């Protein structure tokens, strides 16, 4: 901890789910932070944050137990309900067109409506995604987003997570299986510097889950059981669940599995830090440079798109455009904003594009059963990244002729 690159005197946020790992994390961070007249404190303050996922996952209310645990260290616990990802009056993104068979595109439009409570919006968001594997991903990324937002609003410059090595190994396998290999180095790094304003720390990434459990026992730490979406479900119900079973099973027969997988991942680089890599609107991860066309080249699912490189059809816009500018969405407004309909797929990483496909398949299934299709609903933060990316795209277009580009 002392050696981290987080500057002395900065505030940090500790993610606290209440499970075994984050319980150990909390214990040690608090001990590290305790007042000691012989040495200076490294951090100026701690924010301890718990994201309450009960609106989606269900389960008992542990808030009071968690609060008393944190208070026993003399800190206070910030409890953020997951539905807060939909702010009170802020925008939500709702699908405008029903998904189309041959291209992976999702046209969404920013709407500001107060219809329905935050919990309802959140539940609609999860229902529309359909498959459990995607829901798990979404749950993870929304939770992380809330941690980031809390960290920013409390002026923290780092987020500390309790991922242990078993968790990291499972995560490596799931990320690879979901086509997220490009961002894998960031998901396992002990200090990830991908986000410009927040550093992500994983101090427990070399400790495996058995050691964590023992540590809890020896230190007499009390933790709570945190269910997830597939608790009590069959092994094959989701990718995360299957992978967890696979890795823990292998670990039983070959005790070096977890450390081998984790170590291999630690030293495998990708080009996520290359220039021009954009940030995914949903998961905040890097978008691999070939994210849009790669899939359509190798999985030809329609004849019309197989020959063209651009698979996006312009969405219907009210604004009439006199020049063929090629920008998706309404181009006549000086800076395109996300309140116009746009194709979200262009702003997603390869892994997050799977959401779109799952949502489309779900919609078809519901239609076949004669049910009512829930349009894809996404929280407002998605728009910020998109606005930024499109703003830059527009700026680039404006100054395009004055930029000197290499021929190579």
């Amino acid at each position, binding site marked *: 901890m002392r050696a981290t690159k987080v500057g002395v005197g900065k505030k940090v946020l500790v993610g606290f789910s209440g499970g075994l790992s984050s319980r150990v994390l909390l214990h040690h961070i608090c001990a590290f932070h305790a007042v000691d007249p012989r040495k200076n404190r490294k951090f100026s303050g701690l924010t301890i944050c718990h994201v309450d996922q009960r609106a989606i996952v269900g389960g008992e209310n542990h808030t009071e137990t968690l609060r008393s645990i944190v208070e026993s260290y003399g800190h206070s616990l910030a409890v953020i309900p997951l539905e807060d990802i939909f702010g009170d009056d802020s925008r939500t993104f709702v699908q405008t067109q029903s998904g189309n068979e041959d291209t992976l595109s999702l046209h969404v439009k920013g709407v500001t409506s107060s219809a329905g409570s935050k919990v309802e919006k959140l539940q609609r968001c999860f229902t529309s995604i359909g498959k459990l*594997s995607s829901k798990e991903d979404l749950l993870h990324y929304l939770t992380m987003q809330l941690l980031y937002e809390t960290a920013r609003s409390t002026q923290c410059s780092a987020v500390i997570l309790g991922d242990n090595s078993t968790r990291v190994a499972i995560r490596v396998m799931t990320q690879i299986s979901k086509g997220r290999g490009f961002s894998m180095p960031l998901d396992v790094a002990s200090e990830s510097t991908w986000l410009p304003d927040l550093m992500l720390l994983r101090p427990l990434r070399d400790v495996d889950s058995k050691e964590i459990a023992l540590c809890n026992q020896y230190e007499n730490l009390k933790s709570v059981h945190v269910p997830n979406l597939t608790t009590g479900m069959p092994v094959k119900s989701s990718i995360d669940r299957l992978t967890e079973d696979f890795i823990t099973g292998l670990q039983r027969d070959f005790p070096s599995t977890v450390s081998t997988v984790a170590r*291999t991942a630690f030293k495998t680089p990708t080009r996520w830090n290359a220039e021009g890599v954009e940030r995914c609107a949903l998961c905040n991860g890097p978008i691999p440079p070939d994210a849009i066309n790669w899939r359509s080249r190798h999985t030809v699912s329609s004849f019309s798109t197989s020959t063209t490189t651009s698979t996006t059809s312009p969405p219907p816009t009210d604004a009439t455009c006199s020049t063929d500018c090629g920008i998706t969405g309404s181009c006549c407004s000086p800076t395109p904003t996300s309140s116009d309909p746009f194709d979200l797929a262009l702003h997603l990483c390869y892994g997050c594009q799977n959401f779109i496909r799952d949502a489309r398949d779900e919609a078809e299934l519901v239609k076949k059963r004669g049910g009512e299709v829930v349009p894809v609903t996404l929280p407002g933060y998605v728009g910020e990244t998109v606005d930024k990316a499109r703003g830059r795209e527009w700026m680039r277009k404006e100054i395009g002729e004055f930029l000197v580009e290499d021929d190579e």
Partner: protein
Amino acid sequence: MPRPCALCATARAVLKRPKTGQQICKDCFYAVFETEIHNTIIDNALFKRGQKVAIAASGGKDSTVLAHVMTTLNDRYDYGLDLFLLSVDEGITGYRDDSLETVKRNEQQYGIPLKIVSYQELYGWSMDAIVKEVGMKNNCTFCGVFRRQALDRGAVLLNVDHIVTGHNADDIAETVLMNILRGDFSRLQRCTSISTATDETIPRSKPFKYTYEKEIVMYAYFKKLDYFSTECIYSPNAYRGYARAFLKDLESIRPSAIIDIIHSGEHFETPQPKLGEKKEGGGEAVIRSCERCGYMASNKLCKACVLLEGLNRGLPRLGIGVEGKIRRQHEGKSEDIGRTIQHFSELAVTRTLTPNLVTSTTAS
């Protein structure tokens, strides 16, 4: 109610595509299947006009379909390639002898000349004899090392510019997972590359890199291609089995998982060092030529020569354990290394001396 095809919307859908779940008709299936392979070939610029290309043919489903698709695409898109079939006879009774019959039938069907190279002929040992010597364990090491070299030697004899193999998407995804599980960092960085090419050897590529195994079987089934489908009798490989089972489960949860894994794997790729070049980071490994047979090697001797020496001296563990240690243990024993593999540079000579080599095997 018959469902219309999701692609052409006219014909009746007869199959559900494993890769996408779309219900499509037979003709559309052929079209997408072949187009994807064509895309792979074009995007990666695998071949140049006028090249001679050997199809590594085992007689199994992958290589049978590969031979069919390569001939079809070569005609349709006019690649201008000269195709050959190249088979390796490991000498496994009840397995390879039967599958080679399939390859011989393919030779007739597609009118492509066939060349068979055998372990017996190259190394003086058939797999049956090797298994008798080393037992059921580790025999895949011999087979794998020998086959790699046998294919390259066969390609030199055929004087081809390129070898294509039938590795499919499932195989590659499985290899990515295996390399992670085993912690094989350097293999992880190269296992997804579509072709391997060094200055010394003939480039090899995998046109089926993005093609699902299930679709290959489906293609063979609807096209009524006959292939040989028996597992190798010496093949049980427990650890790989875990990865395979896991991959199949993943595929059943999300069909795109296989291609997603390949997508992930491609981002781990790094450029590989060329012959004589040092690896980045100052590693010791340099690609050089084997002192005994001239094949590329990372040590003084290539793996095949070490394994062969072990077999000939009755020390089959020589190439499997720590080589130096085993050599020390057996110091003073007979140093007769027995028969060696013909030097690589002599292969070209053999070829010019017997120009009718290809045709003579074809006639048999």
